């Protein structure tokens, strides 16, 4: 028993010792922090001079970005290449010294498309001292909106949900919103429909992301866009859509606007092909013409749907690598340089990832060129000033990135594509919605 007693006291003493040691460390750290804070607040001018001096002698600074996205889990087919795009461009910036001697660090973390994981990642990034944050899903962007406001940190999400911007000052959409895309597509439908009022249905993702543009499109219809929306279908995990398609045909639906990720659209298109109800020409009577928003299309859709994708219309603000131009060459070269496979290199989600990183780097570059301290506020101001002559032209979008206090949607133009012979072919020139102003 004595031995046990001795052992107990021994453990107890060690625990107490450790506890006091930790307390001491904590105090030491706290003391140091308060001293540093005091010095910093007293000598801000000195600090600026020191920064300038460091730049002069070539000692660069480290700018930190954070990026939380679905590398695994739902929508990872989009999130994975997106993350590679961000990673590669940041690496490229450092390799090519595009920010001089300063170094760019981007913490990329997987959130598995879960809001709680996103919040955890965001907290971690804040502790790391990030100056700009790249978010991913609609759900998490909406969930963290209050945090972004409190932290006053500029955020560029992969979600183009118009609701992200409501009551928010710090969120910047890289391209026009889903609502804008849906209304633009609908305008195209109305303009090119031949007889009577076009009858449409929406095929959406059962989430905040999917429901995003529904109300705005209904508002546009109520405001005079001559189109009837007969049904809004929230898809499940069906492997066959025969019943759905039959129902839509019975309701005399002619156009199906898809707003979800690629796999459900591929299933829908395959079912339509099997039933022989997919329109061969635009608006073919008695058949269904399928159209999709940004995430409901892209080269991966053709891989998934095969020949069923023929005649599918899709809109986005990004250029595709199937068009050989300067942007496509640059993107493919970047992907090749960092060893990405062909699928990733040609994905519009890779383009998307590169573009958001480009916007962040451009804001840093401009703030740096003005001799400003690189912090959240200066980057926020740089993003807001990105318009008019100061608009930013990434090579991979169909229009310039413009932001202002009244317009926090980056690329304002859209390009319509159609699948022909297994490739998305551009139809006409980039356009912008006229009707969207009426629903604002």
């Amino acid at each position: 028993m004595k031995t046990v007693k001795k052992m107990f006291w021994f453990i107890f003493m060690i625990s107490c010792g450790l506890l006091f040691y930790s307390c001491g460390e904590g105090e030491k750290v706290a003391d140091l922090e308060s001293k540093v804070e005091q010095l910093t607040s007293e000598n801000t001018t000195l600090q600026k001079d020191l920064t300038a001096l460091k730049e002069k002698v070539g000692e660069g600074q480290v700018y930190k970005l954070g990026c939380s996205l679905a590398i695994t889990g739902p929508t990872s087919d989009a999130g994975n290449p997106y993350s590679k795009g961000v990673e590669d461009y940041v690496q490229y910036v450092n390799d090519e010294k595009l920010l001089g001697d300063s170094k760019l660090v981007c913490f990329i973390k997987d959130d598995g498309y879960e809001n709680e994981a996103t919040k955890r990642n965001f907290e971690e990034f804040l502790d790391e001292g990030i100056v700009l944050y790249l978010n991913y899903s609609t759900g998490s962007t909406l969930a963290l909106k209050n945090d972004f406001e409190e932290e006053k940190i500029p955020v560029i999400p992969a979600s183009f949900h118009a609701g992200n911007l409501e009551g928010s000052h710090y969120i910047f959409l890289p391209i026009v919103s889903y609502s804008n895309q849906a209304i633009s597509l609908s305008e195209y439908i109305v303009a090119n429909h031949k007889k009577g009022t076009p009858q449409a249905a929406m095929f959406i993702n059962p989430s905040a992301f999917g429901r995003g543009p529904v109300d705005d499109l209904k508002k546009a219809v109520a405001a005079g866009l001559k189109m009837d929306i007969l049904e809004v279908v929230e898809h499940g995990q069906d492997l066959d859509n025969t019943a759905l398609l039959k129902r839509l045909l019975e309701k005399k639906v002619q156009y199906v606007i898809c707003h979800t990720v690629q796999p459900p659209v591929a299933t829908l298109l395959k079912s339509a092909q099997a039933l022989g109800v997919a329109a061969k020409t635009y608006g073919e009577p008695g058949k269904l013409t399928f159209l999709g928003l940004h995430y409901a299309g892209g080269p991966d859709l053709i891989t998934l749907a095969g020949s069923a994708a023929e005649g599918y219309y899709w809109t986005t603000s990004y250029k595709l690598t199937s068009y050989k131009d300067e942007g496509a060459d640059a993107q493919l070269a970047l992907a090749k340089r960092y060893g990405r496979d062909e699928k990733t290199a040609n994905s519009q989600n890779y383009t998307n990832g590169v573009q958001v990183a480009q916007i962040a780097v451009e804001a840093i570059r401009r703030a740096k060129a003005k001799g400003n301290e690189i912090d959240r506020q200066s980057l926020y101001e740089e993003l807001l000033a990105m318009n008019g002559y100061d608009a930013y032209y990434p090579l991979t979008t169909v229009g310039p990135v413009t932001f202002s206090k009244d317009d926090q949607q980056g690329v304002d133009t859209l390009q319509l594509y159609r699948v022909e012979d297994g490739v998305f072919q551009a139809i006409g020139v980039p356009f912008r919605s006229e009707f969207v102003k009426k629903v604002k």
Partner: protein
Amino acid sequence: MSQNRWLATGNFFTSYRQEQRIFLTHLDRLIFICLLVVLFVWPLCVEVSNKQMLVIDNILIAIVAILGLNILTGFAGLISIGHAAFVGVGAYTVASFSRVLGDSHLLLTHGWPLMILAAGLIGTIMGAFVGLPAFRLKHLYLAIATLSFQMIFQWTINFMTFFNQGQTISVGRVSWFTGQIGRNDHYLFWYYVTLSIVILFSFAVRNLLRTRYGRCLVAVRDNDRAADAMGIHPGFTKVYAFALSGFFAGVAGALHAYLWRGVGYESFTLHQSISYLAMAIVGGLGTLIGSFFGPAAMIMLDLQVENLSQVIGKFLTVTMDLATAFRPLTFGLVIVLFLMFEPRGIANWWRIARSYVKLWPFRY
């Protein structure tokens, strides 16, 4: 009774009262007090990041929920596959007030203890309501009834505009005597609140099991006909177990809403219900200590697997998407292994370790 009140090397009870003591020896009590002191003091001494604190808070909230699930499944023997929905009821109680009154209404920001209590009460009512089929059903049939509740809950939240169709409903920052709790203190504040609730509820459960109300749960679990013969009403006992479990879950839900400063549908899905069940199994069903070990083990495991799958995701191509499968695979594997090799959960390891220390250096 043992002569030495500090150490007991055997059972020397001469009355049931002695056997029912919360702390068998003074040493147990001292260790417990030391543990409490450490739990309350360490965040003030050690520098912890907000992320780490968020994870710890999340574990504590899961402990509150698992204490409730353990009453239902562990002590009363009623399998619930809808526990996340009960937690969701609590969270959405807070969210509903936020929806109606605004997220920064005084009732939410200053009257948060009342809100937590209200969430618990709504959870109790829902628990009792869902438990009503227990009058007629048992075993798997009752489990299906809880599954139905989970489905109805998900459907309601996901489609009703009042609940923002499952999108996050924000909850404002709370206030304390010192003023509004800002971001820097947020997680620490909720650590103390949740820890206090965990301690309070743990004592409540421990005491419950010392009373006839607690013992009747165990009696119904072991043999409901025998319990009936002894004058216990099995139906009422089951409904009461559901109600009690609903209260714990409701409180956990309210804490969740305040900690995350918002309520979204995805935190209360069937997957989460199964996770709760797994936490209870891995911790040790029908044990109080298991309610602490289970959530801690499963949440930490999930985080580690999350990190690992991210590393895997970096090296594998998109088409393989093996990283996505890695998480559920590991999760399932852990449960299967525990069911196969340690059905009594981590609590049993704790029991073995304790008895080893108690008898050391003797083996028997």
